[in-house]
């Protein structure tokens, strides 16, 4: 049994003077913490300079700074800030499967503004002729620019559009076996176009980023 406890188990009642002193110390401590830490950190008020000295003042500034608005406009044209390119809209995602019978071909292209970026992966389960190329907006067919015509069965990469226009692939099945091509892309494109052997140009609709499932693992 401790010395401060009375014989009947009831602790001794502190005197009024002791209570007053303890209360004053508590209030003083609270005021010191308020003035030296809470006010500078939360409200940017730093009467003693302790917020500046301890770095707490920057916490209040971070909360009060107006956020920079994103680039404005409807065209997905990138604005460069050093190594970062910002766009006035979200990127799109797309995935396609093309089945080419003997000697058949198809063209699939995305519309990109100048300097906009596309990420792509495609693979074919057989031999195929391919031409990754682009057509400038409003230009004649002779203005087509080829980027890659190497024989490939698979290609993964990134592409930065050298001009505003449609950019994509021509795939041709050179043999008598059916070939399946799987294409997946993401990028700052606004539309997709499919050109067929029957002379048709059909618009396809890429999906927004909300189509990407949330990974909760």
């Amino acid at each position, binding site marked *: 049994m401790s010395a401060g406890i009375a014989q009947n188990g009831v602790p001794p009642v502190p005197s009024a003077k002791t209570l007053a002193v303890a209360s004053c110390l508590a209030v003083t401590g609270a005021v010191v913490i308020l003035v030296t830490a809470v006010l500078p950190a939360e409200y940017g008020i730093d009467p003693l300079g302790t917020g500046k000295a301890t770095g707490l003042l920057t916490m209040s500034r971070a909360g009060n700074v107006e956020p920079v608005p994103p680039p404005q406009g409807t065209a997905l044209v990138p604005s460069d800030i050093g190594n970062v390119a910002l766009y006035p809209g979200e990127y799109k995602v797309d995935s396609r499967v093309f089945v080419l*019978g*003997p*000697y*058949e*071909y198809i063209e699939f292209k995305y519309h990109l503004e100048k300097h906009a970026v596309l990420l792509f992966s495609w693979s074919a*389960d*057989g031999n195929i002729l391919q031409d990754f190329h682009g057509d400038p907006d409003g230009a004649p067919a002779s203005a087509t620019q080829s980027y890659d015509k190497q024989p490939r069965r698979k290609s993964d990469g990134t592409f930065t559009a050298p001009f505003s226009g449609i950019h994509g692939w021509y795939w041709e099945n050179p043999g*008598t*076996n*059916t*070939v*399946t091509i799987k294409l997946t892309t993401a990028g700052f494109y606004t539309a997709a176009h499919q050109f067929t*052997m*029957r*002379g048709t140009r059909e618009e396809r609709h890429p999906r927004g980023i909300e189509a990407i499932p949330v990974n909760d693992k």
Partner: protein
Amino acid sequence: MRKQRLVLVLLIVTVAIVVTRAFDHEHFRVIGTITKLQKTEFDVKDKDGKTTSIYIDKKTKVSRDEKPVAVTALKVGQSVVVDAYGDDVFDLLALDIRIVPPIPATKTK
């Protein structure tokens, strides 16, 4: 003087539109078997059973195994890959005709 200029501008615009329209053709590819053959026209039946009539002219190139051959090498029953152009599928002129091995009907990998 102003009237002459106006006529000249209208003439240039008209010629530009006519020239543009003349070359404003789509490219088509027709794959199938020759079912009918004439001097300036032939029919190709594709895998879906659709028959397309295609014109031939002096500039039409014909090849087999990547080597040029005469137009007379074309025969009914041959499998061909025809690259053509025209306003639509009912008005096609053959640019290039490739004679290829028989195309299997449902061959897959």
